[in-house]
């Protein structure tokens, strides 16, 4: 047998090699350029707005009334509404999502896991508009039985349902992180007399912490950016409140409201959506930076 002799010449063609390299790079560029484009369009149109409304007034003002006279451009009520809904969602989704992940990765026999995982994926795939109507037409009426003077549009229903909506995101990313923890660490802990719960909470969760925190951050960023659900269920009343039974307005819901309205292009009212959009962009960016820092600080490398 002369195997080596029947190989063809394999000198790499320098031209095709280069083309392939640039083709891959081009794909990278698509997302980079899109991000840059978004940032540019937000910035360029927000600048006009900030010439007329000082940045400091925008960021610290507590009244948001860009259309009704007397106009006011304090964004805090929108930020407050956004954070209120996201906080309610986080209170639901983080513990429930993490507990779900622990159950799937540490407790569930293979058979059960194989049934539950696709079910969770279905939950993740439901269109957000459906969640919005679910909040408005099912959850709110139920809650109103408990709290009769709760408004039809309110932060609580929207937040709770948003929490349910992002559970699969927390659970599936956390579970991936936990499954990646080597078995040998679990055995080490069992062999020292740990219970399953101790193995889960003292070994697996700490070892998977960076992935778990990343899942929290992605989920909360999603909650901050989510639009349809809050537009439908949380209301259109910019309000500085932490009362979860009140109607509020989130930043995203405001952008939808204004985009659908009659504000003429280029007008000050119209440009508010770029200012609000820019702030939303910066908030999610900050979340991600904090996430990276936390992950680096707490990571257990194995």
């Amino acid at each position, binding site marked *: 047998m002369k195997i080596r002799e029947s190989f063809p010449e394999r000198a790499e063609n320098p031209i095709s090699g280069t083309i392939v390299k640039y083709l891959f790079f081009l794909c990278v560029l698509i997302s980079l350029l899109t991000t840059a484009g978004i940032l540019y369009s937000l910035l360029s149109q927000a600048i006009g707005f900030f010439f007329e409304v000082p940045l400091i007034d925008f960021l610290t003002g507590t009244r948001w009334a860009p259309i009704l006279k007397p106009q006011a451009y304090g964004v805090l009520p929108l930020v407050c509404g956004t954070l209120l809904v996201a906080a309610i969602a986080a209170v639901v989704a983080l513990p429930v999502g993490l507990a779900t992940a622990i159950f799937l990765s540490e407790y569930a*026999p293979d058979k059960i896991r194989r049934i539950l995982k696709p079910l969770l994926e279905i939950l993740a795939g439901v269109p957000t508009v459906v969640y919005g109507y679910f909040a408005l037409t099912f959850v709110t009426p139920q809650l109103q039985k408990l709290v009769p003077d709760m408004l039809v549009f309110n932060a609580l229903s929207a937040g709770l349902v948003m929490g349910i909506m992002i559970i699969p995101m927390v659970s599936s990313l956390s579970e991936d992180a936990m499954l990646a923890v080597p078995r*040998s660490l679990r055995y080490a802990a069992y062999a020292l007399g740990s219970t399953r719960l101790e193995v889960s909470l003292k070994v697996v969760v700490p070892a998977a912490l960076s992935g778990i925190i990343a899942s929290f951050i992605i989920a909360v960023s999603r909650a901050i950016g989510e639009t349809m659900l809050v537009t439908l269920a949380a209301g259109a009343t910019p309000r500085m409140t932490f009362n979860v039974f009140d109607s509020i307005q989130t930043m995203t819901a405001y952008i939808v409201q204004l985009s659908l309205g009659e504000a003429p292009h280029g007008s000050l009212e119209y440009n508010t959506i770029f200012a609000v959009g820019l702030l939303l962009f910066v908030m999610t960016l900050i979340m991600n930076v904090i996430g990276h820092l936390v992950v680096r600080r707490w990571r257990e490398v194995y």
Partner: protein
Amino acid sequence: MNNMTSPKSVLNTSQLSVYYGSFLALKNVDMAIQANEVTALIGPSGCGKSTLLRCFNRMNDLIPDAVVEGKVLFNGKDLYGSEINPTEIRSRIGMVFQKPNPFPKSIFDNVAFGLKVNGYTGKMDEAVEWALRQAALWDEVSDRLKKSALTLSGGQQQRLCIARAIAVQPEVILMDEPASALDPIATLAIEELIRELKQLYTIVIVTHNMQQAARVADKTAFLMVDDARGGYLVEYDATSKIFTNPSDSRTEAYITGRFS
């Protein structure tokens, strides 16, 4: 093999068989492990040494389709009896694994782990130091207890795993090829440690290395496997007897290297 009723025997098996699903991995093992001795389990790969070892601290419970039949007595009590809590048993029968598996935590936290889960109420610092001294690791790590255990060398990591097991003061320490992932010098350090530790503990060690069994073990059990009957115990006796004058021709063939 007739010392089943000897007061010194800590672990006794009778007609112990283990299945993985329908696969018979270990068949009808009868043996008694004596207190404060080192017992070595030797034999070719796949003969069920690790399986047998895991019967002693009920680690086989963690393998979903493993079924244990027959009896194991621990200090005369049925280890698989309904009143036995396997979690509690594992803190009294410790285990060291083939590949060093320290937690990705500090050196201190590794040793303190078992103390904490078992609700130790004494002074943590003192207990950790005691365990690290017992494992002959204290002098090397006393100035960096807060550093990650993963900064240690392989041999140090394995001694840390031994310290971690010792910290909860088990009666028995099970070791599954504890030196097979280590270089010769680290291996000698572990063997030296094993000889020290048998004053206080009963040790069962699986090894692939017959010289190692000869060097550290008081008793040696030779297991074999064949397709028809799964793994089984061929001969169990004083190490000197096994290595110089075995009664079974298959043992002799194995130790003289005529098959592996």
